[in-house]
């Protein structure tokens, strides 16, 4: 070792300036551009282009197999006077608000429950996820059978118990149908809310609860003063997603009711599909789809303000 240290080192090559190309290669912005390109390409081809095309089609009288000519706002004028369209707007809002509120309530309850120490905790957490894992159409078909007018297991059970004498026409009655699709949506959406809130709950340090115990807080006071405020950022995220998914829901409705009876469960998404693809009137369908944009933007704005970094949160300094 000593020998090596003492040995003459080979002559070093002279230091030379980096060429222009070498400088470009190591320029961070240049490298960043290449890293951004794939994501940008995806966003442009699969999001921006379809959205732009949809908006363009809504200004034309395109039908399937015919490009159509520009007709300005005519599609929207038609919709303004279309009572079915307004019914679908009402249905969508009802569906979204009722389902989201109940999903939040049940999801939060489940999250709090699963956050407790109890036997088979891991298994119960996995069980809660099942409705989320089952393909939507599959679960919709299952609900379709559960709510079937003749073979409904609910009607059958109630009849066996002697509580009713005739089958309930779940999907054939306006109010029952709405309740049923909302129920199915809740069943499917709760796991997402519950698991995400559970993840949020687990970021709350247990020592805060211990400190609160010593400070004399009851269970309810702990929830009100510690859990809930610390959970608000994640609640804002999860509810935004929940509202967006519910508002744009299509699969469940289409598999269960196709919008019936008498359009009472038609959401904007299903109506748009019915008019554009089944009915072939692409322009009008696109206009219905585009009518969802203001509502979605409003939902996003609400969450944008809900998501504003609170002063106490870690990270960015804003004092």
């Amino acid at each position, binding site marked *: 070792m000593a020998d090596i240290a003492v040995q003459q080192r080979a002559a070093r090559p002279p230091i030379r300036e980096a060429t222009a190309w070498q400088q470009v290669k190591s320029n961070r912005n240049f490298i960043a551009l290449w890293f951004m390109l794939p994501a940008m390409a995806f966003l442009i081809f699969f999001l921006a282009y379809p959205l732009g095309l949809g908006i363009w089609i809504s200004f034309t009288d395109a039908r399937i197999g015919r490009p159509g000519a520009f007709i300005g706002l005519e599609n929207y004028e038609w919709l303004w006077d279309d009572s079915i369209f307004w019914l679908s707007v009402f249905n969508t809002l009802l569906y979204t608000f009722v389902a989201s509120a109940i999903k939040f309530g049940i999801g939060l309850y489940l999250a709090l429950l699963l956050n407790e120490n109890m036997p088979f905790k891991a298994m119960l957490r996995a069980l809660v996820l099942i409705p989320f894992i089952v393909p939507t159409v599959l679960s919709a078909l299952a609900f379709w059978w559960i709510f079937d007018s003749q073979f409904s297991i609910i009607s059958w059970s109630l009849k066996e118990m002697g509580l009713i004498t005739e089958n309930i026409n779940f999907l054939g009655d306006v109010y029952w149908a709405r309740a049923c699709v909302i129920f199915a949506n809740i069943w499917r959406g709760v796991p997402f809310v519950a698991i995400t809130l559970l993840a949020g709950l687990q970021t709350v340090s247990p020592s805060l609860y211990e400190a609160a115990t*010593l400070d004399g807080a009851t269970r309810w006071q702990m929830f009100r003063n510690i859990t809930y405020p610390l959970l608000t950022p994640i609640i804002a995220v999860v509810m935004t997603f929940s509202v967006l998914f519910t508002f744009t829901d299509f699969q469940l409705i289409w598999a269960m009711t196709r919008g019936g009876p008498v359009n009472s469960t038609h959401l904007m998404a299903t109506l748009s599909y019915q008019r554009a693809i089944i009915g072939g009137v692409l322009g009008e369908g696109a206009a219905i789809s585009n009518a969802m944009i203001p509502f979605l933007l409003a939902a996003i704005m609400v969450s944008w303000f809900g998501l504003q970094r609170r002063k106490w949160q870690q990270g960015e300094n804003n004092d």
Partner: protein
Amino acid sequence: MSSVQIRDVRKSFGGFEVLHGVSIPIEDGAFVVLVGPSGCGKSTLLRMLAGLENITSGTISIGDKVVNNVQPKERDIAMVFQNYALYPHMTVADNMGFSLKLRGASADEISTGVKRAAEILALTPLLDRYPRQLSGGQRQRVAMGRAIVRDPQVFLFDEPLSNLDAKLRVAMRTEIKELHQRLKTTTVYVTHDQIEAMTMADKIVVMHDGIVEQMGTPLELYDRPDNQFVAGFIGSPSMNFLSGRVKSNGTAEFEGPNGVRLPLGSAPANSEGRPAVYGIRPEHFTIADDGAEAEIVVVEPTGSETQVFAKLGGEQVVAVFRERHQFNPGEKIRLKPDPALVHLFDETTGKRLN
């Protein structure tokens, strides 16, 4: 303020006993430090005192009331956690006033209480800040402030300084001690750092593997450790231990490893030839012509003192000198233990012999 009595307390986690009958009397107004290596059960004991863990058997009383079945909030204690456990979404003032708010105190009462505590801890300018805007030392003080506001019978500290850097730790040590001298509230303080224990405590309780090894004032523990564990745990650098046998014929002496002769103040009765462990603190060596020969391995000067690692009879020992000697690795020196300050321990039980 209250005394605390811990009587024959045991704790098991699912059949595995971690505390094997611990009894500690704590006088009113005392500053008691529970110290021991990690896993010795000191934090568990503190949490049992706070009511965060159940007591498997035995009793804990605060004042003259047994609190085994008393809710944590009814025990009139306040605890400072290792990670401070400040509520991140509340300002310093809200953090400190939270317990009063829960108790249903009026806004006036809360603000007076918070102000008083903030003044004691020099936190007044920080009352509107959030925990994340504070430095480690400030958070630590807020955690203490939260305890002070409640004006409890007993303060509990669970390794409160271990998240701070070395310099701040020393400063906070003094601050906590000063606070105790001012408030005179009974305090139970858990740490694994024997220096913290030595500097702060009125009474140290050394714990190890779920039992109390020794209780006493810091200097009692330093001067007369009951057993080899306490001897090795208290003091830094820790005590040197050399195995060998006692020679009590003629002058009392100790025959160390490889026949090294070491002086003994007095030998215990009937101990001729008895195998034992010879303990001598690094600071109780002197350099003397009649000392045992040792070869210097490493020299570590710290300015105020110099630590010398040397081979004595083939065993490595540490000696600390405040005087400046000229030491060089490889040199031979003659180390002489102060016979009056030698500790002798039983080889198997580790119990003190002299």
